């Protein structure tokens, strides 16, 4: 059985390269607070894969959170099985500014 040659796969953009397409006005104070001590007992850590901005990363078994690239979708609060995410929207019009979505 002969098969047509597939074109080579193009390179995937990393998250930083995707987020850099957006306009942000980042607040100095984080709008989300992660109670990371609760993450240690977490088996699945769904935030690591479900956060579309990769705000949650695992370093040496610990979950490290940064809010700057947050797309304000709220998914992390919903998927967190341990209620470790204290979530609010940014104040004063801060955060992501969507133009074409």
């Amino acid at each position, binding site marked *: *059985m002969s*098969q*047509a040659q*597939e*074109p*080579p*796969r*193009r*390179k*995937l*953009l990393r*998250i930083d390269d*995707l*987020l850099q*397409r*957006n306009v942000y*006005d980042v607040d100095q104070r984080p709008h989300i607070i992660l109670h990371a001590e609760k993450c240690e007992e977490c088996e*699945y850590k*769904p935030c*690591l*894969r*479900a*956060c*579309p*901005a*990769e705000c949650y990363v695992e370093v040496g078994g610990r979950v490290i959170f940064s809010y700057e690239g947050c*797309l*304000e*979708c*709220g*998914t992390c*609060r*919903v*998927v967190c*099985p341990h209620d470790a995410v204290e*979530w*609010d*929207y*940014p*104040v*004063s*019009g801060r*955060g*992501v*500014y*969507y*133009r*074409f*979505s």
Partner: protein
Amino acid sequence: MGQSAEFDAIVVGAGPAGATAAYHLAKRGFNVLLVERGRGAGSKQVFGGRIYAEPLREVFDDLDKAPIHRWVRRERFTILDGDRELTLDFRAGASTSFTAYLTQFTQWIAQKAVDAGAVLADEVRVDGLWLDGGRVRGIVAGPDRVAARVVIVAEGVNRLLLERAGFVHRASPRELALGVKEVIKLDKKTIEERFGLEEGEGLAWVLLGEVTDFIPGGAFVYTNRDTLSVGLVVHLGGAYQLLRDQVHVLAERLRTHPRLSRFFEGGDIMEYSAHMTIEDSVGYMPEHFAYDGMVIVGDAAGLLLNTGLTIRGVDYAAYSGYLAAKGVERALSEGDASAEALRRHYEVPLRESFIYRDLMRHRGASYAMKNPRMFREYPRVALDTLEEIYTLGRETPLPHEALARALSRNRVGFAEFALRMLKVVMSL
């Protein structure tokens, strides 16, 4: 804002639902405050890409002046698995929906609200509902409390205020999905050539299978005037166990997929956005759409229909805002903003409308879509059946043999398959 006189209505959230409610109330002469956390209306809006027009014609008499990108004529549905692809390509006789940026479309509605006399307070985050013995008296924003005869909650899918005040249960991943999208710039001509579109005509494309790594959800492509909206939706209920990669990796795999990348080739990514959407609308609905001093509209009320082939939320949002404005008008003109009055004038008409009726009629589809086999085994059954039919050696199988082999290869029992298909057909 300070301590101010009472408004007739405060609308929380200048999305399509809230801005429409504010517009129709202001137009009827009411004193309306429209509060929006973003910088200007629209700046926090994300959707897939298409809006159904017919309900909006009753809501806006000048819909044709809205920032419409393309009228959708071409509908495409694809199952992808490696180099195998099954596509249904349909060109409709007429168009009933258009593509747009929700950011722009929402701005258009909010501007109408302002022109009609509503006060838009943007860059204001509402921190809570002002409750007084179970009755909603207004809103709390920072140090300020602002009173209103009625509060219209249009806070969207992420219902922080309603949850905090105890009007709805805590959001469950089973009820919700996450959507991500990339907006890709291409010129008009290129879009029309690549997708086989007439000038100004649009396409809506739903894709299943490999594009969501076979977990429940689906991918989409919408053609805008000179951009494409390309993204995917994954159900959060299965995300714990099933999601093997980060969601943005799935989005990038979609854009660079060997069978799809030629459509996006050469286009710059202008924006990358994310938003939650409702998967189980009936489960997400509040018990009531109106309480003492408050009505709930749009996504916050659970009003979004995803049948698997079509998704509609923006027209439902705007129409529910319109129904809320009419209901609040009646309640206020009777001088009664009690739960009973608001239910009589808003909740009852909403439950009798096409929105609620269709959400109830389609609730079976949302159950079917929670079944991971619908997204893993069943798409492959379709591809394997066609493979049996078209990829011939010496033997030409009968159609039922082709299906039986495809079912057995995917370990799907015939009875299960027949029952499931029957349920899907019945729910449609």
